[in-house]
């Protein structure tokens, strides 16, 4: 189905508001919407909400043969699915251009910045490595999918645990070791977390009037009236992990450096939130295991963390 057309009234109102530093949802120009992270009972299953934008991630793994040129490295795959549930403009079936752009974006931010240690995914060099699959689904689209997806991918990868693997005794003189690997059930041996070196997160900027007016975390309508976007991915150490520019806006170097400065502040806030939510989630899980949980029934519920930092609603 075609997307809902944007009326002239909406266009001029959103543009006028952006130009006068006012935003349609009452936020400030540099404010993010409310971030909500919900960890589901299953490992690697996380839902991230950014205002009315909602995405879901499921991380899974599988033992595969490594690429011949990199025998000691595992693989991480990102797959972004934009279903019609999120927006009527999304078509089912083959991934759209936008879906490919987004999954490549997440890949650049999370994988190409070496956030995930791929060598630690190796089980037997040249024989068996873990292939981590990160499935990202957009559930509701109200703009800025990229920031929500990056955050979800990272949260999913940190939350995920890979099962432990052990080698059978080699006394039998088997030829193929990889075929006889024992993958331990999670109840048998505690599964292991992936090693995450740093937490790169993105911040999206939308521009109007050749970059004269700018907003952080654009909504769907702001995205539609904007002339272009700049996505800056960064970690808490102020290392820029990726920069992605989209649209026809011309920016000069000073604007980009200004954006990275703003991104640094936003990323610091978001990292703090993500770290805090993960710590709390792990604490809850540990309590549950130790039998200190308030109620047994609670173990089936997701644990939700909300961030209400700079939100006016």
């Amino acid at each position, binding site marked *: *189905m075609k997307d*809902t057309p944007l009326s002239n009234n909406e266009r001029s109102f959103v543009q006028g508001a952006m130009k006068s530093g006012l935003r349609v*949802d009452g936020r400030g120009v540099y404010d993010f919407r409310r971030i909500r992270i919900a960890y589901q009972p299953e490992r690697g299953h996380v839902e991230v909400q950014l205002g009315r934008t909602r995405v879901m991630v499921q991380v899974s793994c599988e033992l595969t043969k490594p690429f011949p040129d990199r025998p000691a490295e595992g693989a991480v795959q990102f797959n972004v699915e934009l279903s019609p549930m999120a927006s009527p403009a999304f078509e089912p079936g083959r991934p759209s251009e936008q879906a490919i752009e987004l999954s490549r974006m997440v890949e650049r931010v999370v994988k190409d910045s070496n956030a995930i240690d791929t060598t630690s995914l190796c089980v037997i060099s040249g024989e068996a490595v873990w292939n981590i699959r990160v499935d990202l689904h957009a559930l509701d689209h109200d703009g800025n999918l990229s920031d929500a997806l990056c955050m979800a991918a990272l949260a999913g990868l940190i939350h995920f645990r890979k099962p432990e693997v052990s080698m059978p005794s080699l006394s039998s003189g088997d030829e193929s070791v990889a075929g006889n690997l024992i993958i331990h059930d999670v109840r048998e041996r505690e599964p292991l977390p992936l090693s995450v070196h740093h937490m790169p997160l993105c911040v999206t900027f939308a521009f109007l009037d050749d970059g004269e007016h700018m907003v952080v975390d654009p909504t769907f309508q702001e995205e539609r009236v904007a002339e272009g976007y700049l996505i800056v991915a960064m970690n808490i150490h102020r290392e820029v992990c990726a920069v992605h520019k989209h649209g026809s806006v011309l920016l000069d170097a000073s604007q980009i450096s200004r954006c990275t400065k703003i991104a640094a502040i936003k990323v610091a806030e978001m990292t703090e939130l993500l770290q805090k939510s993960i710590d709390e989630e792990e604490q809850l899980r540990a309590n549950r295991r130790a039998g200190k949980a308030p109620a047994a029934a609670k173990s089936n519920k997701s644990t939700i963390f909300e961030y209400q930092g700079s939100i006016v609603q």
Partner: protein
Amino acid sequence: MATIDELFPRIGSVVLPGDALGDLEAGDSADPADGPGSTTSNSSLHAFTQHGGRLRLGPGLAQEGGRVIAASRAGVLQGSMGAASTGTGANAHSSQVARLYIASSQKRYVPAKDELVVGIITDRMGEAFKVDIGAAASASLSFLAFEGATKRNRPNLAIGALVYGKLAVANKDMEPEMVCIDAADKAAGMGELTGGYLIHISSGLTRRLLSRDPAVLIALGKHFALETAIGLNGRTWINAQTPQQVVLIANAIQNSEFMTVAQINAMVQRLVQAL
């Protein structure tokens, strides 16, 4: 005169698809065990239709086998009793209309006749505009369906303009047709919507805004003047004196969806103070 609650005892409660809500023909042989004075809902519904009362089924309801009113959607059964527009003279008292619908919340719009909608002009074709009303098919809006329009004096609406109008034709086999005039050829508030802002809300919230006492609009109206055009297709146009007020109204309406009246009043108070 029967009230709507007597005809349909389940008004205000949740119904599920397939639930039988009333039988048009049963009732004459009302069980005498009920005793005198106790009329079952079915018998009064039968009596109601026998005495010229009419039923108007809205979204989520269907007539099954010619006699049973059944739900085809999950939601809260709602209804009202009104006078039929055709009733005149001596038989005016008997021509009551019971309007019935199922209030559910969804984003998709299914066109229904006589509903007021907010559309976006997407194209001009020959003698009519093509209007996106958020339904599966776009509606057509004739150049002549505006107040004071003639063959020579055509309305001049740009592509992307917003129009508030009524659906004159809406059935599943035909393209919906929209008009911006009432039965007396008057605009009656319909026509192009200039300026302002458009918000997209669920059908449930839309119906609540159109109810007799929409808490959020009443609360907002105490603080400043505002203008709305509420479309049943989930699009609501709003306008006020300043953009700040428009933003406030938009957020107040969208936030009010899952709030009680007390919460709405507190929320509006808080937003107005922050302005």
